[in-house]
């Protein structure tokens, strides 16, 4: 399946775009997504940490991704 990934802050700079597309297997998890992204954008591994949000909620590594989910990479937040 093809998924779109939103990026913000430092990850937008790493991806060179606020939105990237990715091909994943149909039963892919957050863990698989992170692995695929890190292969394509090795600078992700230099971040202090980063989370993935699915449909506006923080997701866990084992959570499954579905084709129409809104997926976003959340680098370390620094609001306030």
């Amino acid at each position: 399946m093809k998924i779109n990934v939103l990026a913000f802050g430092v990850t937008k700079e790493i991806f060179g775009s606020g939105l990237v597309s990715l091909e994943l297997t149909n039963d892919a998890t957050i863990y698989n997504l992170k692995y695929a992204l890190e292969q394509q954008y090795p600078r992700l591994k230099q971040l202090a940490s980063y989370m993935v949000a699915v449909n506006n909620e923080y997701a866990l590594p084992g959570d499954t991704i579905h084709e129409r989910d809104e997926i976003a990479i959340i680098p370390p937040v620094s609001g306030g």
Partner: protein
Amino acid sequence: MSSTQIILSAETLNIQSCISWIMSPESGGIDVFIGTVRNATKGKTVLKLDFEAYEPMAISEMQKIAKQAFAQWPVQKVLIHHRTGELQIGEVPVIIAVSAAHRDAAFDACRYIIDTLKQTVPIWKKEAFEDGDVWVAAHP
């Protein structure tokens, strides 16, 4: 919910209107936290800050924090306003206001809200220094 006001805005935050909104005859105490843009980080001059937000999720995470504050303390109203975009030194990126019958709940909830916002709400700031820009907390 009229007891909660959450706003993410590209416009200047209005401190007085936040205080007017939070005041009510039932309140015995109001606690207000105002974050301001500081002119230096670790001794290095900061020129300005740039805030970016994942807006729908930032709003929903701020709503969760407000809800948790109501669950944990006897507070009456909660207000969270946060800026996006470019801010100059001395400008206000965040205002938290909490009202309660008694001051302890207002102080504790206000502290909880700003501390949790900094940990969970998807908003990012970039500091502009004389020798370049840095996304705060991005790298170890």
